[in-house]
């Protein structure tokens, strides 16, 4: 039977390999020769253009009231000149009215895009909640779910109070969202003769001048990203984390840890300006947050895992790990799908707009996201199948997420082929990393968050420096450096150095900061519940109610 299974396995692998090789060959064969752009024709059109005057516009007529009254099943007479608001009824429609309407439509479509994708990212909290709860034991279901539920509110409060101000308080100007002019003060210091940003100061409580429509869009989008980072830690420390300690730790992370690195990478801080100030490519580039969101969450989870220690029963006295299976694999895989759906907000939404400035690349970002996730689940599943004889479901889910985490930073800068490679590497990397974390480092990570988000977040950051193909064009520049982000394989080694400085910052600064904060909290408050509470399950002692009151829970150490 085993031999037959082995042969079947080999046949599947060979079939997949052949399919892959043939696909690559066909794709190359179908690639057309580059076509020179029709520059002369475009130039002639530009030369023929004449300014539009108010008189030209006055001659444009819309559909009559009678025509509109008949209905518009084809949609051809809805949205015409009649729908452009007139500034001065005495003058009638002017060029200024038309131009202002066009400008507002650009910003409106960017607002809608960024808000809707932000709503998708918010829904990822549901995905994280059921993945983590499914991977925990039934006796801790209420506690794990409540951590995931309240991390949203706790994080948001901290971010509204001060976090947003630190991260984005000096980010203006941002043309996609209408300027964000009120976010205009960044505290700087001199580093090797250059002024570099450390943290922003505008936007605390969203008061004063930051009571602004563009700032609100930015706040909502950044806030849901921050919450994603916070919820990563709850997965690692589940089943033994004191609920009150979780609240305090999450407040600090939402207020300080996440926003500080967020400012350095996205708020105009020193990492973002490594290119403009020190000639390192386009500075640290992290399109949607492999580093800012996932690696920050991952290294904080690593710090927590060291401080809080493994669950009772995770290791034998000679240090061998015991498997502690989660209680609901259905929840886990459903959660992975919800997360993948939310990732279509995470990555394509990070353009912060759909109109102008090269933002139509959202289609490419979305496809890259899909491909990397698929590739990750594929390689992770096969790794587990070959190594352990079964296509482990929870690790396949984690590999799926690992592919998505890894493509998050490069999704806006790479092509589909690179996305698949990044995803394939991520799928295997997460399995290897889980083994090392569990067996060598002897750290108990309930859901594999350190490997999924930390290790693969870092891989995603590095992959920008390798695979960015120099074909993206977001308003002609990135981080204040003209041109497209280009990685080592496409000719810019400086970009890889900038990315690695980002990695060093994550490991050396963010980890240390998180570790010290949580070590202080451990000393004054304590992170871990008592052994009695842990053995009983955290639902009753910590939350006062079982997640599944009608389940019969077996006692720790009992055999069936």
């Amino acid at each position: 039977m085993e031999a037959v299974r082995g042969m079947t396995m080999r046949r599947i692998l060979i079939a997949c390999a052949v399919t892959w090789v043939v696909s690559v060959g066909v794709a190359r064969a179908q690639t057309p020769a580059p076509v020179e752009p029709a520059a002369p024709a475009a130039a002639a059109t530009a030369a023929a253009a004449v300014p539009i005057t108010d008189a030209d516009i006055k001659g444009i007529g819309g559909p009559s009231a009678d025509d509109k009254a008949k209905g518009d099943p084809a949609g051809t007479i809805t949205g015409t000149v009649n729908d452009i608001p007139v500034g001065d009824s005495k003058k009638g429609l002017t060029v200024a009215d038309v131009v202002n309407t066009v400008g507002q439509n650009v910003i409106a479509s960017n607002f809608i895009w960024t808000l809707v994708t932000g709503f998708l990212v918010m829904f990822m909290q549901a995905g994280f909640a059921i993945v983590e709860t499914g991977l925990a034991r039934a006796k801790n279901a209420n506690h794990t779910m409540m951590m995931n539920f309240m991390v949203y509110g706790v994080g948001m409060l901290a971010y509204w109070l001060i976090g947003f101000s630190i991260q984005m308080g000096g980010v203006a100007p941002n043309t996609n969202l209408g300027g964000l002019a009120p976010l205009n003060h960044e505290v700087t210091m001199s580093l090797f003769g250059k002024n570099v940003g450390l943290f922003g100061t505008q936007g605390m409580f969203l008061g004063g001048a930051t009571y602004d429509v563009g700032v609100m869009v930015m706040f909502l989008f950044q806030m849901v990203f921050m919450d994603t980072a916070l919820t990563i830690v709850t997965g690692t420390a589940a089943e033994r984390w004191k609920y009150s300690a979780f609240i305090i730790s999450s407040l600090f992370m939402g207020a300080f840890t996440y926003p500080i690195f967020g400012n350095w990478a996205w708020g105009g801080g020193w990492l973002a300006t490594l290119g403009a100030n020190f000639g390192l490519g386009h500075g640290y580039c992290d399109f949607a947050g492999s580093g800012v969101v996932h690696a920050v969450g991952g290294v904080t989870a690593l710090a927590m895992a060291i401080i809080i220690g493994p669950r009772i029963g995770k290791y034998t006295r000679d240090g061998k790990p015991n498997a502690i299976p989660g209680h609901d694999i259905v929840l886990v895989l459903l959660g992975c799908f919800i997360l993948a759906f939310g990732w279509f907000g995470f990555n394509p939404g990070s353009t912060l707009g759909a109109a102008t400035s090269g933002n139509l690349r959202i289609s490419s970002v979305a496809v890259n996201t899909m491909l990397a996730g698929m590739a990750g689940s594929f390689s992770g599943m096969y790794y587990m199948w070959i190594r352990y004889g079964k296509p482990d479901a929870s690790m396949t889910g984690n590999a799926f997420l690992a592919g998505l985490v890894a493509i998050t930073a490069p999704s806006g800068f790479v092509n589909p082929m690179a996305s698949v490679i990044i995803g394939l590497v991520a799928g295997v990397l997460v399995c290897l990393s889980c083994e090392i974390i569990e067996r060598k480092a002897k750290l108990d990570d309930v859901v594999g968050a350190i490997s999924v988000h930390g290790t693969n977040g870092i891989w995603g950051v590095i992959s920008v420096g390798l695979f960015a193909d120099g074909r993206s064009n977001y308003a002609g520049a990135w981080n204040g450096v003209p041109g497209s982000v280009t990685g080592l394989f496409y000719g810019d080694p400086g970009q890889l150095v900038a990315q690695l400085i980002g990695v060093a910052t994550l490991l050396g600064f963010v980890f240390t900061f998180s570790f010290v904060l949580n070590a202080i909290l451990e000393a004054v408050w304590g992170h871990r519940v008592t052994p009695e509470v842990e053995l009983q399950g955290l639902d009753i002692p910590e939350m006062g109610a079982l997640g599944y009151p009608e389940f019969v829970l077996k006692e720790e150490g009992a055999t069936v």
Partner: protein
Amino acid sequence: MAFAGVIVTFAGFLLAASSIGIATANSVRLVIVLVGIALSLGGIFGLLNPAYQKNAAWKR
């Protein structure tokens, strides 16, 4: 040893960040940053984690 781990981990970051001022050639910067990353990893997994593992509950 835990304190030493924190210091070494942070020193790795300082070394990597200082690469932009120490050298102008990207290859030299790359080497310095990689040494910084290795130092931080050494601090975390070589010093800090073993310090906490020494009194781990599962050893008792």
